[in-house]
């Protein structure tokens, strides 16, 4: 039960470096599917650098909460990422919290993100905060139920143990419980990361934006940390999805060859999931705000079915 400092440092580095790349890949993929050339996949890194260097304009109405929020968003996403097994079976920070802490940390980040949206007294920010908290609230039961389904099978909320239990001899691609819970979590992923059909990450149209509306007053390095935090959160949730449901390839021991294979397998899985996200985003139109609850209740029903299937297929 010791903390492995090298593992923590390596996973932190991997999270920080990989998160913008995933955003870039998704953006590029979307552009290709829409017959555009699109920005290069490393564009998000350049954006981050640019934001870091820029001067900041802070609203005269804003208080310290506004300045504090970007760091909370960034740190909570990063800490949550350390609780998910990425390349190895053992997540470096498993001891400090499992999937419940992960959900809690992301909620803490969202809490401050929404406060940061309200702080500059802009109606756009308030609108974004209101919608973000609403969507998060209705996504949460589906998320938790889907997580409970896998956690119950493992008898633990510790993600390392969950992954180990999933990887057991009974793992199969078409286990109905896994398929249903995966579908539920995938819908939650779209909602939580502000993707179509729930929110459009590419829009700045006043009345449709959710996540971007809260960031409207942010600039300079605060914006950099907000964007980085958002892409970290996306990476964390995607990692959760690919590694909990398809734990193949995770390195059981920390030998160089196992780690290299684990990293390759992980990147491949992430790439596949990104492609799925790209296809879903390109083929779906944005839903009207009050249709989003229907989508998320579908996710809840899927998760409940996943739970029920534990009875039916045993």
């Amino acid at each position: 039960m010791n903390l492995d400092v090298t593992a923590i440092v390596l996973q932190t580095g991997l999270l920080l470096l990989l998160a913008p790349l995933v955003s870039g890949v998704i953006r590029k993929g979307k552009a290709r599917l829409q017959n555009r050339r699109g920005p290069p996949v490393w564009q998000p890194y350049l954006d981050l650098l640019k934001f870091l260097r820029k001067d900041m304009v802070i609203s005269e109405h804003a208080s310290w909460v506004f300045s504090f929020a970007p760091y909370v968003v960034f740190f909570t996403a990063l800490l949550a990422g350390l609780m998910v097994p990425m390349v190895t079976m053992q997540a470096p920070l498993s001891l400090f919290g499992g999937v419940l802490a992960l959900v809690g940390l992301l909620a803490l980040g969202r809490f401050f993100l929404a406060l940061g949206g309200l702080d500059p007294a802009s109606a756009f920010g308030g609108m974004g905060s209101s919608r973000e908290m609403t969507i998060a609230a209705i996504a949460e039961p589906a998320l938790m139920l889907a997580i409970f389904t896998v956690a119950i099978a493992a008898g633990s909320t510790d993600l390392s143990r969950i992954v180990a239990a999933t990887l057991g001899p009974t793992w199969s691609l078409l286990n109905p419980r896994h398929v249903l819970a995966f579908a539920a979590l995938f819908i939650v992923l779209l909602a939580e990361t502000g993707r179509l059909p729930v929110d459009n990450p590419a829009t700045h149209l006043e009345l449709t934006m959710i996540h971007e509306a809260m960031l409207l007053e942010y600039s300079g390095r605060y914006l950099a940390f907000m964007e980085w935090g958002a892409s970290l959160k996306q990476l964390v949730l995607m990692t959760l999805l690919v590694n909990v449901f398809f734990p193949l390839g995770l390195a059981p021991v920390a030998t160089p060859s196992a780690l290299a294979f684990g990293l390759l397998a992980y990147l491949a899985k992430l790439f596949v999931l990104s492609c799925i996200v790209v296809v879903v985003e390109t083929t779906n139109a944005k839903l009207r705000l009050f249709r989003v609850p229907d989508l998320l209740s579908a996710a809840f029903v899927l998760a409940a079915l996943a739970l029920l299937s534990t009875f039916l297929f045993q």
Partner: protein
Amino acid sequence: MFLSDNAFFFLIAWEIMALTTYLLVSFEHEKEEARNAGVLYFVMSHIGTGCLILGFLLLFQASGAYGFDGFHAIGARMAAGPRNAAFILFLVGFGIKAGIVPLHIWLPVAHPAAPSNVSAMMSGVLIKTGIYGLTRVCFDFMGPPPNWWGVTVLVIGTVSAVLGVLYALMEHDLKRLLAYHSIENIGIILMGLGAALMFLHTGHPVLASLALIAGLYHTINHAVFKALLFLGAGAVVHATHTRNMEEMGGLVKRMPVTAFFFLIGAVAISALPPLNGFVSEWLTYQSLLQGFGTTPSLIRLMFPLSGAMLALTGALAAACFVKAFGITFLAQPRSAHAAGAREAAPTMLVAQGLLTAACVFLGLFPTLVLKLLDPVTQQLAGLQLSTRLSLADGWVLSGAVATGGTVSTPGLVLMAVCLLPLPLGLWLVFARGAKVRRGPTWDCGLQGLTPRMAYTATGFSKPIRMIFKALFRPRREVQREYDFSPYFATNLRFESHVEEVFLTRIYRPLNWLVWRVSRRMRALQAGSLQAYLIYIFVTLLLLLLFAL
């Protein structure tokens, strides 16, 4: 009341508590609102006491004495009928005091009517007496519980939690909002207690202790953060002379210390790490999760489903406190009162500061506090759990089952501190030359933002109101006066209501029925002495006939 070991004395203390609270609720008796709230509280509280007296009489029948030690596990010697009746009577009696749905209606009325320090006391201590009573009766007196008791308590807890937070979201009266959150938190506590009863039924003392600890720890935590929030709200109300959030705003600059304390309380009550609300909800989740394996029957689906509802509650609570903090303290002041607000007096701040420190302590060092609950679980479930719950010298909190999962709130804070060099380094390398400028918020090219353009509390909760419209039955009325086009109204009146289903569907008809019956009964009281003598005579005869 907590010290009494005798049903008789317990009820006397209970009544003294109810009566003094009545006086405190109607303290500002010159306001009609406070008088009505006092009477409502008085009536509800006495219905509860009536149930308790009957319940204790049933126990007395079985044991032959009023002492609590005589009541110990008395339920095992009672027949099923009176035993279940006693359980229901106690559930209603204590439930009214605790404020469970649907017996909660006095709570959102009485809390805001009382002065804020009294509200803090009521939320922190008074409603917890109901929890104490229920725990004492269910776990100590009633013996091994049948399954439906636990299921009932769990369902009531889940329903109270979700409905409490949903109604809280609809409020823009700061203190009523907090009062509805008390209902929510009582619900969360009852989820723990209900799960514990179910585990006792299936014979899992370890899990029962875990669920009990989760419930009791949340009781402590709720007492602390809710008192903190009520004191903060009191300071705000004192400074702005209004309880309406729509007239606040911008207070973070005018009352910075109160704002900081309120924010800590808001994070704690929203069950966000690393504060105390998160820890007790984590324990609740753990017990619900482990509960799935305790029984093969379909009943076990209750556990994950109530876990999902707990997640919904937590997320809605976070939304509600983004609203409560954001609208009250952030953005521009929305009224002259808010613009002229001053920081609260140092004495008020000290009280809030102590409670804030308690929130942080209970959040970061739960293992120290859980040791204090050992005697309780020892007495009620038969084993001590604190050593199992603490790992790594108390730095890590563990679920009761070794593989169940761990969490470490101090560890998370330490990790965050260790990561601090990261943004600092980035700043040093890239952003040292960047300048910071203050500017106006983007106003779409208009003549500057006015407070009227900012998002309101009602607007903030609108999506939730629309999604749950089957429950709220929102009604709105818009009247426009205009000269040539409705888009350029010269005068606009807007009213929006949500219906409180319990009030309109249950209590109003009930009230109406009581009035009707009372009016009929009035015929008896004709004012003639002869008639009264006849009543006495007939009663006497009937009693004599009974005795035969």
